[in-house]
């Protein structure tokens, strides 16, 4: 494994060097390709996974520690209006059987590494491939960007309308990158746009956030679609779009829709947007022997609208949605939900729990949200308040046992304070509470059950961000708190929450995350993280959780996680980050997309070099 580590380091450094040797970017005598730009971005990542003993009395040793090395190289060569590029990931774990110290443990039998990169499902991996080293050509692309005509071959991203039927955009901040591998053609003019695309879904397999062990290659889905936009006058846009999906899970789906967008109505006081989509899904049923029994057609719809009014210091935004059988299309996988579409949810991320699909991504939901933003000029204060209300017609076992009505008020403030020359304070915070009332359907009648009123589910969430700047010194404290409560009539056991099951009556859970940081000159940051949770879902095996790197322990009740981090950016093309300590498992969201990251105890470091 030491040789692999050296190989990785060598690749990291050597890959970066040629960018400077040829100086392609400068249109000067001696350039290899005058007028061309060659860009490299290389990230090298090392993680030492340390396993704690979850029960010192059981005589069972904790798993062996292991190391992960990931190198991500991204190169893009631009020549005029063309660009060609690739992303190559290499991942290695150790120790492996070539490590004498590890191999010595297997005197009497065949050596097995403590962890293997490839999953045991045999899903497309070469049988003789190394279990501890995996190169992956994740992305490759050729693009032409003319002023009115563009085309892309290879990996590309796409979104139609507001993302109801298609939204595949990578999210590097959570290391989520699902692209379409195929072709895309665009015509773009002042009044008219046209897009046609087709491709296979191509999720990024190697991760810098998740554990790179037991990676299973998943079958791809095929997506094809088109979109036309027409802008008859400035500020107005009419769009129509359609897409067909041949999903990896033996399902075919089609969607057609359109939207109208009108800006600056009523003398600039109002913007409107409305989108409607008709959905059709065909699912195949199989018998015990795998024979096709038949198929069912399942129609649905997805409507979304938004109106934004501007009244001096006050901005009002009203959004509404009505989804029926509007399923999130995503790659199958327990911890890597890679969505192919991302409809507006109207929900605050702060109330998202580890059960992502159950809280914000229901496929059968109708609701609205009104938000007011108020800017007080004399004090430079921004206040906001929102109220969301929805009816969720889908049951979510393990989270909500019944259909539900949700209400969610939230208020917040953002207050910059100028203290003196070079000294400032910034305060921001918000608090909200979401409650889900059960709504039971009985004999075809909608019937609210009074004795279950206030007896189901709620999330209280709070966030505070305090920043103090004194010259080149910046201090920040960020604290978030989430409290979910269950108030069931009696203890209920849920089999869906992992192999061990989970029983609960009314205790809910608490999740607290605190971070204190100091930054000098905007370049050097030291931070301390102190987190706490007793959330059973965080500890659950399916979320790759558990405290530190302990295995799932049914008796576990709570745990604190303490970690320190140093981030150095001495020059703009180099970033070095080192983390040591424990990090709790849990959900990380950005822009409405979420992924569940595993717990971690150990040391991880990341070096990013851009050229």
């Amino acid at each position, binding site marked *: 494994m030491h040789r692999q580590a050296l190989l990785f*380091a060598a690749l990291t450094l050597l890959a970066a060097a040629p960018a400077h040797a040829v100086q392609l970017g400068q249109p000067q005598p001696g350039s290899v390709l005058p007028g061309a730009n060659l860009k490299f971005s290389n990230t090298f990542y090392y993680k030492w996974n340390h396993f704690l003993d979850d029960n010192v009395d059981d005589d069972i040793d904790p798993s062996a520690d292991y190391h992960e090395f990931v190198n991500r190289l991204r190169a893009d060569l631009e020549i005029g209006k063309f660009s060609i590029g690739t992303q190559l990931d290499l991942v290695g774990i150790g120790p492996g059987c070539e490590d004498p110290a590890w191999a010595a443990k297997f005197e009497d039998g065949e050596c097995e590494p403590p962890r293997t990169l490839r999953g045991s499902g045999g899903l497309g991996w070469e049988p003789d491939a190394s279990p501890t080293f995996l190169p992956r050509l994740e992305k490759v692309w050729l693009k032409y960007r003319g002023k009115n005509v563009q085309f892309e071959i290879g990996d590309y*991203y796409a979104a139609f309308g507001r993302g*109801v039927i298609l939204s595949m*955009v990578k999210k*590097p901040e959570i290391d989520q990158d699902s692209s379409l591998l195929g072709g895309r053609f665009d015509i773009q003019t002042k009044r008219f746009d046209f897009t046609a695309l087709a491709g296979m879904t191509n999720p990024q397999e190697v991760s810098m956030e998740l554990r790179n062990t037991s990676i299973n290659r998943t079958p791809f889905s095929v997506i094809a679609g088109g979109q036309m936009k027409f802008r008859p006058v400035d500020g107005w846009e009419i769009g129509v779009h359609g897409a067909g999906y041949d999903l990896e899970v033996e399902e075919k789906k089609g969607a057609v829709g359109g939207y109208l967008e009108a800006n600056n109505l009523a003398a600039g006081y109002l913007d409107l947007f409305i989108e409607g989509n008709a959905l059709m899904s065909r699912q195949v049923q199989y018998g015990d022997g795998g024979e096709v029994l038949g198929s069912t057609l399942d129609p649905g719809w997805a409507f979304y609208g938004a109106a934004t009014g501007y009244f001096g210091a006050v901005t009002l935004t009203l959004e509404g949605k009505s989804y029926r059988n509007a399923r999130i299309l995503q790659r199958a996988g327990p911890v890597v939900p890679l969505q192919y579409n991302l*409809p507006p949810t109207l929900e605050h991320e702060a109330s998202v729990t580890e059960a992502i699909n159950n809280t914000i991504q229901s496929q059968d939901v109708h609701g609205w949200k009104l938000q007011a933003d108020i800017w007080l000029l004399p004090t430079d204060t921004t206040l906001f308040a929102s109220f969301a209300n929805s009816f969720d017609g889908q049951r979510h076992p393990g989270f909500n046992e019944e259909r539900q009505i949700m209400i969610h008020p939230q208020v917040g403030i953002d207050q*910059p304070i100028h203290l003196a020359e070079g000294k400032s304070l910034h305060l*921001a915070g918000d608090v909200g509470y979401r409650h889900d009332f059960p709504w039971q359907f009985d004999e075809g009648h909608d019937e609210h059950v009074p004795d279950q009123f206030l007896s189901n589910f709620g999330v209280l969430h709070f966030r505070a961000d305090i920043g103090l700047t004194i010259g080149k010194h910046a201090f920040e404290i960020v604290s978030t708190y989430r409290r979910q409560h269950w108030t069931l009539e009696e203890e209920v056991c849920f089999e869906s929450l992992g192999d061990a099951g989970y029983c609960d009556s009314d205790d809910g859970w608490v999740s607290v995350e605190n971070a204190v940081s100091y930054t000098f000159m905007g370049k050097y940051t030291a931070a301390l993280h102190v987190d706490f949770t007793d959330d059973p879902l965080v500890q659950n095996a399916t979320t790759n959780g558990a405290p530190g790197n302990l295995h799932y322990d049914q008796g576990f009740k709570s745990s604190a996680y303490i970690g320190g981090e140093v981030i150095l950016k001495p020059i703009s093309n180099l970033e070095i980050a080192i983390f040591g300590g424990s990090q709790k498992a849990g959900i990380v969201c950005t*822009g409405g997309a979420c992924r569940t990251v595993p717990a971690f105890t150990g040391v991880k470091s990341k070096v990013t070099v851009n050229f």
Partner: protein
Amino acid sequence: MRLLSLFLAALLLPASAMAGENVTDLTLKSIDGTTVSLSDYKGKVILVNFWATWCAPCLKEMPKLNELQAELGDKGLQIISISADDAKDQAKVKATTRRMKYTPKVLLDTEAKALEVYNPNKDMPFTFIIGPDWTIAHEKKGFTEGDEEKLKHWVEELLPKG
């Protein structure tokens, strides 16, 4: 030792990853429904800033950019803020910028086209400055209080004197 030398040599080369590059033009939709190309402002000093509604440092930087646009707009500066929010969050983008009385141009990159060209790692916020000669002069990741002075200095260096 050779590897170490290579690594150190790489770091000592120009600090700005994109500095000196010719600018790749892009056309995106603005929040008021029109289409805008970077080349529409060719000849000016263009400060391009990537941000998102979920990015707290971005929201702290935007009032500073607003002040910069007000102060130097008449002298030849055009700030273009590119929202990296998803398509589903466009209503939030509009509300945020209107709430701030944000005067720079705001473009929507719902399909990550601009991100792929200029900021593939999706650093937030991320800023680069295009000079009147249509090359990238400076770039900067992140924002902490006081960074606005550095941006102003960079812009003033590129603006026509007098």
